[in-house]
């Protein structure tokens, strides 16, 4: 096995890059979509609120693996052909967006009601009130839960191996088949995952201190 250290490191490295790229795409997409869905869920227009609620119900209640299979094998059946990596990242972004939406909503609820009333009384519209008054004060309570979502999102990319993406877990499976050392290859992968999640926990802590609003 030691003669293959370079090869192994190379494969795990490539896997890690895919994992990182997928995590970044899925998480960024989830935050963007989740923010939009959260705005829909609290906006004054009833049909939009219903749509937002429906979105969360659907995506939060389907196991991610099932969602990945539906996207990877279902979309081509509908004639929609996208690269595997993009398909998987999109499915993950949409899935985690449902969780981001709920975090944003609870952050918004943590802002005292009087803040929105004062803003409305001054003539600010719904969007202006949200953007200039509510969201800036909702960010702090959102940081830690978003950090948890990031970790969940990063670890969930390992499911992509099941639909054929050669990310970190995919590479571990490949090495297992090749060298017949399942414990070693998965132990190595675990170390990489843990390094990734510990780092994100630290980053979340720093961000939280930075966005603290003194009250």
């Amino acid at each position: 096995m030691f003669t293959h250290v370079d090869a192994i490191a190379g494969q795990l490295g490539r896997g890690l890059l895919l994992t990182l790229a997928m995590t970044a795409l899925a998480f960024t997409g989830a935050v963007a979509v989740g923010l939009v869905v959260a705005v829909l869920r609290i906006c004054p227009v009833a049909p939009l609120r219903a749509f937002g609620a429906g979105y969360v119900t659907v995506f939060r209640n389907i196991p991610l693996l099932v969602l990945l299979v539906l996207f990877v094998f279902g979309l081509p059946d509908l004639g929609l052909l996208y690269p595997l990596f993009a398909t998987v990242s999109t499915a993950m972004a949409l899935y985690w967006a449902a969780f981001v939406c709920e975090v944003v909503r609870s952050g918004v609820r943590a802002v005292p009601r009087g803040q929105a009333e004062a803003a409305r009384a001054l003539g600010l519209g719904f969007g202006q009130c949200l953007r200039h008054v509510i969201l800036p004060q909702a960010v702090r309570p959102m940081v830690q839960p978003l950090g948890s979502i990031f970790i969940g999102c990063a670890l969930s990319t390992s499911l992509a191996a099941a639909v054929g993406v050669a990310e970190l877990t995919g590479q571990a499976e490949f090495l297992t088949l090749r060298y017949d050392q399942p414990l070693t290859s998965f132990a190595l992968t675990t170390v990489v995952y843990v390094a990734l999640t510990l780092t994100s926990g630290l980053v979340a802590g720093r961000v939280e201190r930075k966005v603290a609003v003194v009250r």
Partner: protein
Amino acid sequence: MNKHFGENHVLRDIDLDIHTGEVVVLLGASGSGKSTLCRCVNRLETVDSGLISLAGVPLPDEGGELARLRARVGMVFQSFNLFGHLSVLDNITLAPTRVRGLSRHEAAERARQLLDRVGLADKADARPVQLSGGQQQRVAIARALAMDPQVLLFDEPTSALDPETVGEVLDVMAGLAADGMTMLVVTHEMGFARRVADRVVFLDEGRVRETATPDEFFDAPRTERAREFLSKVLSH
């Protein structure tokens, strides 16, 4: 107008005119609907029936037109509601820049004048948490004034304040009244009501029970309910 909260009929056939430059003080026992009336006037609360108009223009139920008209109805809350993440100056300039399209420079200049007027010229860069309650409320008044409101609503502006800071807020309000601002004031400060009000409106169980000049109301209330109310609030 009429307003229900569920089964609770909170405002009953309210018919009220406030004239330009008039100071109307709204009195009534707890739960009589004073806050609700104030909040309905600028549509923070919906009404079940009735019409609210500002200088003859009816306020619509919602939408951009409401926001535009509502900007001309200032509101000062019991709990100040200054924006916690913004400096005093930014609290005052937010709406003028975003809603009325003033440049930052114009808005800041006007904000400093207003801060000077409420006696807080040196607090422009402070955060709301760094101010006392009385100072916060004076900033809130400056913030409302920055939109050049046609009328100002006050819902118990001094109820959350320490006794020693009540006076500084009432002084600012009396100054506004003297300058001809149109005001609707809910307060338990009877001395202020007597001194500053042009008219007292006594609300009881959601109805306007009595409308009178302060002298008439305090010296010779016409209704039994008003006499009861006054004996309670004036006895301590």
